[in-house]
């Protein structure tokens, strides 16, 4: 398969499948199961196709004559696209019982899921600010609606409205910033802007600096960094669990993918100006996120708040990008892998045991799960350990890379704060483990449904462990080294 084919086939497949379900949904042959499986199959096939593009180093402009160099397909985007598709697939596969037991997963919801994935795929390939904005809005709009899927739930409606309003508001900053950049650089193409920045003196590019700052506000909003992330708790709580998993595990990573490209291509020159801001942002994000996570009573909200802390860790690496470019950038990639699989697993377990009910899962609801469902409890424990950065899980390796890159860049104090918030995170993550194992069962044994969902949860758990210890000494399966190489190739394919 040529790379160009992959780059075109994946978004096209997503788009056609979405439109197909949209039409098929009105036919009398449509059942929820069929819609579900068509979506799942689409994601799987698209994943298989896109996984072909991962591994070697390349970078091509897709049909530069038609698209005017707006989209670029490189190892970087190939890796991330595969990740999103896998994420969408896993979320949906784990959520089978949830989808079955609720009545708000209509055919539109599958369409929206596919559309949002389409948006993310284009977003990662976007080499140009306007394309990126459009892709970002396609993805965002779909996610807004997905949040409000459950029309009967007040919380979901509130979350939808809040997210929509704030999201659209923050998006306007992006437009303004883009305009300012265009006013000076006379282009929205990332390469052209980078060229311009490089050949112009720093003090005469005020518009670009201001514009980039405005774009950063939108980004900070989307990744829920403090102080722009006030929406995150309510929205994550209001959305139904599979959607929360999707937002935390996939959508956020898509944003980071774009930010990474933007940073490495353009922002890196302004490193000295932005570093203090990012460092401040990282510190505040970790601090407030930890505080929020500690006080939550519901596991879902705790995970939402802790996702803020994880954004903080990633910001540490962003701050280090200027001084330790390659190691910081690949640390971000690796951390995204790690967070992706752990978050999907953790939210997946919650959606698996909530069985489609609307109520928030409190710590008490997990009591005694280890006795009734030992495998699920063990899987959730593994995800918690990984999120907490406990050795032998992929989360630890991710933290290890981020902290190393921070020290390498000379920000030892930042690494120290990262470690401190990791210490606080031990409390709230181990609280889950404590409830799973040490409390007496408060509920009767229930049947949770599909073995397939369980299989995917276990699979994610195994991946988490393998990502933490995996080596070719034991089994010839890609382990830590391979993931490492993958992230390095991806970064190098951007020209670094």
């Amino acid at each position, binding site marked *: 398969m040529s790379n160009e084919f992959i780059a075109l086939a994946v978004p096209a497949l997503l788009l056609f499948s979405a439109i197909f379900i949209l039409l098929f949904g009105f036919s009398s042959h449509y059942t929820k199961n069929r819609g579900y499986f068509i979506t799942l199959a689409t994601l799987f096939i698209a994943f298989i196709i896109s996984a072909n593009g991962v591994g070697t180093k390349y970078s091509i402009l897709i049909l530069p004559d038609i698209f005017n160099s707006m989209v670029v397909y490189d190892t970087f985007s190939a890796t991330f696209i595969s990740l999103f598709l896998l994420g969408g697939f896993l979320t949906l596969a784990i959520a089978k019982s949830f989808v079955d037991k609720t009545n708000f997963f209509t055919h539109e919801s599958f369409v929206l899921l596919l559309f949002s994935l389409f948006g993310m795929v284009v977003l990662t390939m976007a080499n140009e600010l306007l394309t990126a904005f459009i892709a970002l809005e396609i993805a965002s709009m779909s996610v807004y609606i997905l949040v409000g899927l459950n029309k009967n739930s007040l919380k979901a409606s509130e979350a939808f409205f809040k997210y929509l309003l704030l999201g659209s508001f923050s998006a306007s900053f992006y437009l303004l910033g883009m305009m300012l950049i265009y006013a000076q650089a006379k282009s929205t193409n990332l390469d052209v802007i980078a060229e311009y920045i490089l050949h112009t003196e720093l003090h005469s590019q005020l518009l670009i600096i201001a514009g980039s700052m405005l774009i950063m506000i939108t980004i900070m909003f989307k990744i829920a960094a403090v102080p722009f992330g006030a929406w995150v708790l309510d929205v994550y709580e209001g959305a139904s669990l599979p959607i929360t998993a999707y937002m935390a595990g996939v959508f956020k990573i898509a944003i980071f993918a774009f930010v990474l490209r933007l940073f490495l291509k353009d922002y890196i020159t302004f490193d000295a100006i932005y570093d203090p801001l990012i460092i401040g942002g990282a510190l505040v994000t970790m601090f407030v996120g930890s505080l929020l996570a500690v006080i939550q009573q519901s596991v879902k909200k705790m995970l939402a708040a802790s996702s803020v802390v994880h954004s903080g860790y990633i910001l540490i690496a962003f701050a280090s990008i200027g001084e330790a470019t390659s190691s910081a950038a690949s640390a971000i990639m690796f951390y995204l892998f790690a967070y992706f699989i752990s978050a999907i697993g953790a939210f997946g377990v919650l959606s698996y045991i909530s069985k489609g009910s609307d109520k928030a899962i409190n710590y008490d609801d997990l009591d005694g799960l280890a006795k009734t469902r*030992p495998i699920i409890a*063990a899987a959730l424990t593994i995800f918690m*350990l990984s999120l907490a950065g*406990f*050795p*032998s899980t992929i989360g630890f*390796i991710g933290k*290890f890379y981020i*902290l*190393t890159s921070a*020290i*390498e860049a000379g920000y*030892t104090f930042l*690494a*120290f704060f990262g*470690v*401190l918030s*990791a*210490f606080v995170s*031990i*409390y709230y993550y*181990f*609280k889950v*483990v*404590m409830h799973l*194992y*040490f*409390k007496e069962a408060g509920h009767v044994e229930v049947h949770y449904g599909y073995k397939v969902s369980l299989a995917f949860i276990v699979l994610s758990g195994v991946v988490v462990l393998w990502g933490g*210890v995996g*080596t070719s*000494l034991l089994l010839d399966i890609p382990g*830590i*080294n391979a993931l*490492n*190489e993958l992230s*390095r190739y991806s970064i190098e394919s951007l020209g670094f």
Partner: protein
Amino acid sequence: MSVLSAIIFLPILTAIFLFFVNLHITLVKIVYMISTLVVAYLALNLYIDFDASSSMQFIEQHAWISQYGIEYHVGVDGVSLGIVMMNALLMPLVAIALYKQRDKRGYWINLLFVQGGIMGAVLALDLMLFYLFWELMLLPIFFMIGLFGYGKSNFISMKFNMYTIFGSLMMLISILYMAVEHKEQFGFYSFALDELKNITLTTTESLLVFSGFMIAFGIKIPIFPFHTWLSDTYRSAPMGIVIVMSALMAKLGTYAIWRFLFTLLNETSQELAPYFIWIGLFGLIYFGISAITQTHLKRMFALSSASHLSLIVVGFFIYNSYGLIGSSYFIVAHALSSAALFLMVAMMYERVQTYTIDSLGGIAKFAPLFALFFAFFALSIVGVPFTAGFVAEVLIILGAFEYDTLIGFFAATSLLIPMLFMFKTISKVLYGETNERTKNFQDLRSHELLAVIPLALLILAMGIFPNYFIKKIEPTAKAFVDKKEAVYHE
């Protein structure tokens, strides 16, 4: 795969196997016994094959995370050999003594897991690998206290967990800092002990890095003032884990000081040694006096353990071959005695359902064998001649006198404190007035005898023929002291 890897991973794999395969509890115990006996056999072979004329042996080395130079790198020398042997020996004996009391799968699975974790941490020569096992062995302890502990076990397991992880994270920062420094000075990442010791750090840097490590080790041991988790945790923890903590995990902390701090930051350690000697001496007295005031047997022995561990720390920090050999000998001797004593306490608890010293008394009248062994182990802890503890304490005190007369004097006199509470306990528990609880005290049963006799024999053997055991440590000590001389003459 070398014998060391087998020793590390056999228990862990068995634990995983037992977790997934839902066997009957009797079978679980049998599998546990088989696994620990195989490990004990392997460790015994290791001991016999161990070449008494050289230091680091049985090295196994593979690339693990190659981009960062992290390796799977294990090896054994005279000091770690002692802990490996103790770990391998105590685990089956614990099961022999306690198998009737514990009927939960989780108990045995976690014990196996902790055995593997400790083996890994002792044998690791790569800092990342060490960190992995160091953290990993926490997990089973956390579960054991939470699942099988007494009192406010949830709170206590969480407190213990947070406390020790805080230390570990401080150590992590230090490790990463050293690795990055290594990269800057030599151009590539490495976490190997042999590589990292070559880097040069400024005084401030090395002090900070040293504190990072020391917080982690100090909490594990614990030395004053990081001991506030100690008595609650020991009181709440089930006996299997108390034995692991007092006999093995705490020793691992002292061992790690020697292995990592003295290797990586030799000069800083030597400069700071006087402070830690005084902290150690203070801890020896402070924990000893606290132990005198306790009425709860487990807490008392916990504090007495801490008091002796402070002595081990002193022994390492006096930095000469007497101190080193004495301390590593004491690690083994104290592991044997404290494990045995805690086993006796567990047997006693099974019979009288109490740990309070005041509600006991007159046991010797009904259970002469129990009284004999209890008294023997209690005396061996305080270092009565012909027991292993005596040899070790004499060596440490000799070393202390060689280092400084005042410190030698303090070390020697403060050893009287443990005698105070041990004799008090013996007289109160074994003799004293008989009461309702103790009047039906059953003497040791055969499986309990089977567990304690080997320990008693070993303690005697180590007390009477110390040379046979010390000769395995000597090359390591010599290499260590030579290195120290080299630093002095630079």
